[in-house]
């Protein structure tokens, strides 16, 4: 009799413990899905921002640079990048997140094209860096380069870094790779002012190049004005 009640106790305790663990699992799932939804919301907002800027740009071909300057400098892209990166290592849900990452890459390309157009017309001070890395294999150089770029972006708020995962399965990114002839054996790769740099570049090296890039852009609008 005693033994039977003992067994019952072991089984009951097992189910209580199990339900506690399932609660933990449920809570984790609940909060993680809220996070994924937050990511989606940010992306939608960025998407609308870009679309709106594009429309604005098409409507007013003689765009007043004053109007457009802040609206397209979407700092949210940077925030989204941070959250996506953090989410990939902390949320799980790899399928949903890789889908979001594709969407993010597309937004980056659109933002890049649009900003480039507007900046060249308005002659704003800015430098672009396209950054290609990989997550498919262990790339310690990429991690280092990522740190350098984050630090650079902090130092120069105007600097716009667009990072693309080489291993992402998205035709638009493939097209970018083809344009700049990026190969997976030479990652990380950077495109600074149309010039392709492969391998790791230190903080100092990149900084000097960016400064150069600033000057180039400062010079361009004057030329344009002359030609107009």
């Amino acid at each position, binding site marked *: 009799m005693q033994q039977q009640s003992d067994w019952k106790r072991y089984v009951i305790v097992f189910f209580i413990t199990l339900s506690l663990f399932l*609660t933990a699992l449920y809570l984790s799932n609940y909060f993680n899905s809220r996070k994924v939804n937050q990511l989606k919301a940010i992306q939608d907002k960025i998407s609308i921002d870009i679309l709106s800027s594009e429309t604005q740009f098409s409507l007013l071909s003689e765009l007043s640079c004053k109007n457009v300057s802040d609206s397209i400098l979407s700092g949210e892209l940077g925030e989204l990048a941070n959250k996506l990166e953090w989410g990939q290592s902390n949320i799980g849900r790899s399928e949903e997140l890789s889908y979001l990452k594709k969407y993010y890459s597309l937004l980056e390309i659109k933002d890049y094209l649009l900003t480039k157009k507007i900046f060249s017309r308005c002659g704003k001070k800015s430098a672009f860096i396209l950054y290609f890395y990989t997550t498919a294999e262990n790339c310690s150089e990429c991690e*280092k380069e990522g740190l350098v770029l984050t630090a650079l972006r902090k130092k120069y708020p105007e600097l716009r870094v667009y990072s693309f995962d080489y291993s992402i399965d998205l035709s638009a990114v493939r097209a970018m790779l083809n344009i700049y002839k990026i190969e997976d054996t030479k990652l990380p790769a950077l495109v600074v002012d149309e010039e392709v740099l492969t391998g790791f570049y230190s903080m100092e090296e990149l900084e000097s190049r960016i400064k150069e890039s600033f000057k180039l852009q400062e010079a361009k609008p004057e030329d344009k004005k002359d030609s107009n």
Partner: protein
Amino acid sequence: MASISNIIFFILTFLCVYVQVFFLLTFFEKKKKILIRKESFELDEYLGVTVIVPCYNEEKTIKGTIDSLLALDYPEEKLKLIVIDDGSKDNTWTVIKEFEKHPNIKVFRKNNGGKYTALNMGLLHTDTPFVGCLDADSFVDSQALKRIMTYFEDKDTMAVAPSIIVDNPRNILQGAQKAEYEMAVYNKKMLAFLGGIHVTPGPFSIFRKKVFEDLGPYRHAHNTEDQEIALRMQKNHYKIEHCPDAYVYTVAPNSVKKLYRQRVRWIYGFIRNAIDYRRLLFNKKYGTIAFFTLPSGLISVASAIFLFWMFLYNFISFLIHKISQIKIVGLSFTNNFSFDWFFFDTKTIFFVSIILYTSVIASLLIGRSMIEGKIRFSFDILYFVIIYSALAPFWILKAIYNAIRSKQSSWTLERDVDLIGLASCKVELAKKGNATTI
């Protein structure tokens, strides 16, 4: 790597939470049966009890220990004390010799041979139906013995363990131990309900003398003779009870070094005794001790080690990452940190850890409420959680290391010494009672 360690983490925390839930469930089921008496009472019959006090270099505390025994609320003629100086190098002998003239106290001096030899010598001079011992660093509450003796009204009860409380904690470390000892009171009572006690602690556990007559005297038992005798009793289906309101005050180690040494000895003893009594493990004949007490002890050893490695691994990889970051981009203090709940960890591991810690804190609180009569939070609980999380892995690792090493080297030697000691004591005891196989 990450996924395997995650799986191990989940299994171990599951088992740890299981243990806590097991205690909690038993508590809610049996809490009305927990007897805490405040008023003094009289027993129908006062049976003779001998208390053996083994001491080694304890000139400072031994007088207090003996005085507390003499102050026990128990008829003088029924209480005998045997104080044994186990070859002390200080003034212990001079101190205890002063008690020689007391009619109920016998004092002996012998060559140093370890605590168990002193206890066995005391057993040889015991002629009462009950016997217990009290370490010379502990003091008893005056009602302790009377309260314990009520449990022997049940003819099946063969031994009763008291509640050990840390005496007057003076620093954070002793405070942490106070919380731990209170939790142990609760755990022990729950195990007693289920017949699964695995230690009859050195301070003031009382036995029927028959236990030693039947099962033989104390053994060296890897310096944890109080664990071994309890396991031997369990193996022979002898009932061990716990009296939660029999308070014994003990002086807890006041430095990390002393605590470390004590714990290495305890855990080493637990591991070695668990190996010696491995046949009990998961054996249907032995109930709770086989399916719960011994496995949960082993689980806690494994969990502490694993969590420690996991923490170390994460900490080192964090450090490497930080160092490489500083190397590449230099120290930057422009980190304008802003709180965003998005970056708040919501992994399952996080919630599971919360469950685990909550259950441990609940146990600490219940332990405290059993001693103090009400649930009250104290910083001791916090100290316990922090200090033990940080230190326990070290003494557990050392104990495992010692267990592995000594098993290879001194196994046979130790056994031989043990058996010689045992044989001589057993012959003597057999003369007085009916000794069976050890």
